[in-house]
């Protein structure tokens, strides 16, 4: 039972992180039909920028910096985490807008070409991040005042940052996005745009401004994800493609463009991952080492019956 609760919490926290990242991916797609294959790069870059701000402003380093996680023993205040978080996510939002305006605005509608362009950008970004931040995994320090873990009823221990911060951040972000989409003028335009883009522009709405807003929001979510993930797990080359893939799987399962679908997809991916890691044991047959294949079986299974995902609608 204790183990079951821990494993479930593991799955939920992973799902929370996947949701934050994938929601940005799916929103951009829903409105603009752009598959941003550089979304994972924005995730990793967001984390690295936060780490850079944290180490530059809040610690002092020297020497070759031989270290396994790039973290020193320093004390970190809450601001030493929050300020990098806010700045990094804003910067990533702006980078997202620049990316959209420079590379994607003029070829709107050619979705395959846009996917290829963002793949090219992700290749370049990955290499440049490797050059600048190195190939060693690093993590962002959580505020020292926060506890390492909390104890739940039934003697279940769980990481504080993981269990409390990431989970509540995901819930807040989910609520916030829901309100933005359902209650604001921006959200109304977006919803209308998802249904019929031509009609929206025919109504005299500046579609470009809406697109800018959406790319800012989508990239920003990748940035927040990067900071949360960089604190909860770590930052390393390869995490960009890992989170791009996670986002892809989440939205393929949930249906491209659907926020609710992203939530369901993230939950499915996170929980299936976590349970398969532990419970894939049948008597003497221990298949836990093959758990990731179950994730893909889930994906292929969904696709075979609903090619557009659980909540997907034809374009």
């Amino acid at each position: 039972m204790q183990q079951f609760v821990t494993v479930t919490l593991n799955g939920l926290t992973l799902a929370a992180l996947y949701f934050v990242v994938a929601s940005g991916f799916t929103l951009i797609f829903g409105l603009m039909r752009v598959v941003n294959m550089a979304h994972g790069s924005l995730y990793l870059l967001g984390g690295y920028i936060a780490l850079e701000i944290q180490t530059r402003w809040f610690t002092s380093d020297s020497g070759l910096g031989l270290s396994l996680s790039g973290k020193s023993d320093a004390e970190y205040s809450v601001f030493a985490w929050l300020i990098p978080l806010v700045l990094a996510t804003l910067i990533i939002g702006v980078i997202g807008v620049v990316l959209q305006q420079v590379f994607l605005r003029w070829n709107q509608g050619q979705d395959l070409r846009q996917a290829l362009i963002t793949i090219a950008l992700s290749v370049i970004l990955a290499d440049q991040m490797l050059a600048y931040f190195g190939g060693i995994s690093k993590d962002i320090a959580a505020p020292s005042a926060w506890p390492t873990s909390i104890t739940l009823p039934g003697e279940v221990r769980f990481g504080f940052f993981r269990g409390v911060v990431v989970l509540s951040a995901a819930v807040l972000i989910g609520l916030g996005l829901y309100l933005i989409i359902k209650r604001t003028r921006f959200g109304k335009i977006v919803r209308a745009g998802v249904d019929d883009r031509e009609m929206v522009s025919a109504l005299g709405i500046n579609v470009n401004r809406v697109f800018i807003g959406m790319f800012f929001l989508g990239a920003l979510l990748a940035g927040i994800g990067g900071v949360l993930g960089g604190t909860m797990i770590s930052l390393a080359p390869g995490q960009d493609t890992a989170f791009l893939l996670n986002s892809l799987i989440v939205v393929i399962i949930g249906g491209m463009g659907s926020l609710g679908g992203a939530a369901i997809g993230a939950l499915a991916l996170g929980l299936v991952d976590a349970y398969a890691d532990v419970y894939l044991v049948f008597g003497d047959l221990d298949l836990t080492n093959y758990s990731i294949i179950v994730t893909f079986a889930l994906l292929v299974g969904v696709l075979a019956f609903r090619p557009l995902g659980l909540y997907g609608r034809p374009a």
Partner: protein
Amino acid sequence: MNPTVSTRRIAWPALIAVVALAAIAPLLVSDFFLSAILTKALWLGIAAASLIFLAAYGGMVSLAQVGIYGIAGMAYANLVLADGGAAAAVNPYLALVAALLIATLVGLGFGWIAARSEGIYFLMITLAFSVLVYYFFSQVTGLSGFGGINSVDLPGIVGSPEQDPLPRYLVTLVVAVLVFLGLGVLSRTAFGLGMQGVRDEPARMRALGFDVTLHRTLAFGIAAFVAGIAGVLSVFYNTRITPGSINLAQTIDVLIVAVIGGLYRLEGAWLGALTYALIDNYSREWVPEVGNVLGPARFNTLIGVLFLIIVLASPGGLIGIAEQLSRKVKTPRRAPAPMPAPQTVD
């Protein structure tokens, strides 16, 4: 989609000249160049050709080709005598046939699932296939595991490439030429024309009583067979295969090769592969060090920028650029020829 793709005939004189040059290349270049550049470009070109075949004639940009060539390579490496894997010690020629068969069958299965989606969905689903194959072989230690399979036994016709790379090069060359000719001929058969019909007018083809999904699935199977050939040749080339040889980076690399060469022309595959291999091996020597941004170690930045430029400026790839230039030379006074129509998928 560029409608002129299908009507081209094979330019025999040019092909013969290229093949003749390739055949005498061993006399002109070092063993290292023969292996690391030419042999690699030939098999990588076959992998890219399977992608281009699907994209140009079927309108399907598939990222599953590396997954499928991984299956063929892994199947071969497991069947023959090797260090790691199942090491079933089957005769290499038999293993080769079995590997191609397995890859084609798996490809048909993948194709059956993927053929029902189009455009960008197709791209993502096939990407998921490739990653699935990677994780499968990473996790199933009985067949590979992270360390992969080393010292794979090769068929006699390839000789022992570490001592003499020439037989392997010639084998790869012959196979590449056969693949090029085979796909070219296939595109002009009723099946190939049907593929192009399905690509351009799926609804109309359906109305004509065409089984569109079946047609796309079969096309995918054929491409899988070609990708499988590339997979087996890649094992000949490396004498080993690991999950790392078929990871996401390799998937993207094959896409890059195809796009750089030209996504709408089969011969673009080998041009792209040759360009890729040359940059890969020689960029260290001539790329200047510019801070952290550029330098001998920044191959991926270089290839990424080239890829980006091609996608932005010339969707027809290097072949497309060459064509535009030749058009300009021919008709200097007239307005420049229209770019290949940008591809849209609705």
